[in-house]
């Protein structure tokens, strides 16, 4: 029982970056753009989210003051969002304005972002003389919370009320995005752009503006997911290749969650659980490689299962992968 509880809590923690990546990509795809650069944008967010608080800490210490954890966390959030959004802006300019192929552009962004993240991560470590790590003050801003009263409730407290703030941030974001897409006028317009840009255009929607906005905000959210990797998963230390395929898993989870942000919550917890399973349910004799394969193997199964015909509402937005040009004949 205790093992399961621990596994569930660990699954939530491991699933949060997946959730953020998935949410970012859902928003992007809802505008009819499939950005395969999630992995790259996460790397960009990871390095920006680590290095900005890192420099902030250095500067305040030099000035003889002590850095504030809250300020560091907010900087990490803003910097990682900006970095992811910048990656997405490159993607958006190439595909939306210049009509470049979406798949190729996205893949290139992954390669670019991975390289960028690792290059500056190593550089940062080299400058710091060994490895780049944050001080205790900033690290503790990303520690699990202890909410008086709530965190002490048996079982429920552990299951719901003792995570770091980013977990709650991601969950609220998922619910808000769900509400936005389903209920609001802007969400309706965005869905229309992703399904059929020609129809949206004829209805007077500025498709370019919607696409740019969704792609950039989506990329920013992916960037925040990357920051989670460098700030929470590796606790404020740059680890080479720290995003390690989470971006790709997120792309697959978009399909698993049928483009529904609320279902992405479930998907992220399940896959988060799969990635940490070996620590909590070790089967004697089972090679570690099998465990490491598990999330990817399940992804393949999920993709097969979800390719079986389903309801029209649960399919990928129809114009994904196709660039829209009004005067095309």
């Amino acid at each position, binding site marked *: 029982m205790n093992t399961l509880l621990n596994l569930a809590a660990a699954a939530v923690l491991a699933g949060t970056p997946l959730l953020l990546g998935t949410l970012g990509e859902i928003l992007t795809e809802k505008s009819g753009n499939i950005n395969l650069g999630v992995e790259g944008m996460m790397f960009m967010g990871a390095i920006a989210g680590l290095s900005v608080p890192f420099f902030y800490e250095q500067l305040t210490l030099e000035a003889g003051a002590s850095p504030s954890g809250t300020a560091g966390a907010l900087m990490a959030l803003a910097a990682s969002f900006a970095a992811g959004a910048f990656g997405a802006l490159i993607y958006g300019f190439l595909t939306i304005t210049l009509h470049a192929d979406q798949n190729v552009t996205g893949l290139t962004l992954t390669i670019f972002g991975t390289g960028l993240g690792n290059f500056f991560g190593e550089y940062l470590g080299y400058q710091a003389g060994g490895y780049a790590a944050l001080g205790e003050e900033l690290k503790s801003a990303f520690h699990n919370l202890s909410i008086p009263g709530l965190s002490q409730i048996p079982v429920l407290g552990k299951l719901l009320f003792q995570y770091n703030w980013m977990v709650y941030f991601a969950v609220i974001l998922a619910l808000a995005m769900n509400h936005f897409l389903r209920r609001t*006028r802007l969400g*309706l317009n965005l869905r*229309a752009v992703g*399904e059929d840009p020609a*129809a*949206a*255009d*004829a209805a*007077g929607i500025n498709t370019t503006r919607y696409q740019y906005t969704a792609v950039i905000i989506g990329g920013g959210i992916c960037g925040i997911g990357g920051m989670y990797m460098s700030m929470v998963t590796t606790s404020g230390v740059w680890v080479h290749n720290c995003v390690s395929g989470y971006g790709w898993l997120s792309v697959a989870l978009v399909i698993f969650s049928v483009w529904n942000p609320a279902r992405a919550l479930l998907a992220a917890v399940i896959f988060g659980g799969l990635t940490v399973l070996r620590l909590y349910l070790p089967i004697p004799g089972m090679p570690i490689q099998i465990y490491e394969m598990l999330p990817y193997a399940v992804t393949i199964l999920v993709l097969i299962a979800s390719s079986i015909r389903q309801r029209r509402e649960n399919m990928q937005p129809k114009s994904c992968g196709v660039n829209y040009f009004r005067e095309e004949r």
Partner: protein
Amino acid sequence: MNHTGKNVVRMTNITKTFGTSTADRNVDLELYKGEILALLGENGSGKTTLMNILAGIYFPDSGTIEVQGQEVQIRSPRDAFQLGIGMIHQHFKLVDVLTAGENIVLGLPGPLYVDRKEINRKVQELASRYGFDLEPEKKIYNMSVSEKQTVEILKALYRGADILILDEPTAVLTPQETQKLFNVLRNMKEDGKSIIIITHKLHEVLAISDRAVILRKGENAGTVDTLSTTQEELTEKMVGRAVSLAIERPQVPRGKEMLRVSELTCLGPDRGKILDRVSFSAYAGEILGIAGISGSGQKELCEAVAGLYPVSGGSILYNCQTSHGRKMENITGWPSGRIYQQGISMAFVPEDRLGMGLAPSMDMVDNVMLRSYRSTPGLFLNRKKPREISRRLIQELDIQTPGISTPVRRLSGGNVQKILLGREISNDPSVLIAAYPVRGLDIQTSYKIYHMLGEQKKKGTAVIFLGEDLDVLMELSDKILVLCDGKASKVMDPKEVSKEEIGMMMLHFGWTPRHQEVNP
């Protein structure tokens, strides 16, 4: 011409080019308040382009547009509907996973949340004012073509359109639905709205419009008052010379039974019966016309016979030439590859020309070769014969193309269809299935295609023709069959049933005309 109303739209000297081709050259058009104007022209005459300019989809290279006496720049569809211009496109611009109501309010300014009740009420109110039926909560993908059209019209009206442009609105409607639409248009005209209807069906021009503007090859070819014109005059202006509008139906003696479909049943993706015990025979030297509103199982029927759609019951027999003479071979469930290998010369012209019929980015030679390369020996492809066939087809069918090595997707719809039909015919088929072969084609090309089908019939081919235009279907076919909701009627003689009766049978299965049916 005397007009009591004032002009609401005046387009002057409009020119629009796409790359090197000119769609419209110095075109003028005027629309008066409270009139229905028909915009008539062949394919490629620039009528849709001209209207797209008015609707903000395209921006003209030169020329001026005045709306209600004011010169305006229409840079986007939003600009257009702010000026009260709404266009109902031929390919509906609706998002099919959304409901009718959602589509209608799409893109409109308003509060953060969409108030469904309020929208539904307003939509209902508009609908009843002009005599429409509509369920605002229904998803577009569950709708018939005519319902979708209703949504498009309501969308324009909801945005306060006073000027409505309809691009070939009747192309996919049954006669009854067309009548209903025309009544609605007349109601709107009474209400003071101005309507432009793009069409190339001449009898509709005469039935509904007050005036007609005719375009030919991107230029003005005249404006006429409908009351004082005839179909012949319209055609002559449209084509540039007199054209006979009679469809020839060569009389040839009926030959052998070439294809016998009995009790054919196919399941759709949701396991429902998409074809339900369909039976008919096709005979050499005869054109069998198949009518039906879209989605009644026509596509599946063609594809099942061609070996492209799984059959779950019944049989398909094909009259084959074997070493022991002719015999009816059971080809049920054979994949298309096997049908081909067995030397069965069946030709299929699918409705989706560029998706299913031809490889769009390959040139004409390669497309011709697709059908025959497997039967030529050797490791390498021999393009000599396909090249000859391509050249011959260009000559014989008057295909307009820069050359045999131009990718077929760059050609216009009519030329693409000629290539497809030409390729199929060049294999001397004994059964030819043509699904909507004239969809979207202009008068001249359509008649050319009808003529080609007639020629095939004379050569002793059994032709199965799926058509949308009932007038044509009934004139061209020797026998006619109606599909309704996957079920087939008896095979009838088109001379013994009326168009209205066929229309009723398309809508209600089991509806039988007063006279009895003829046997096949």
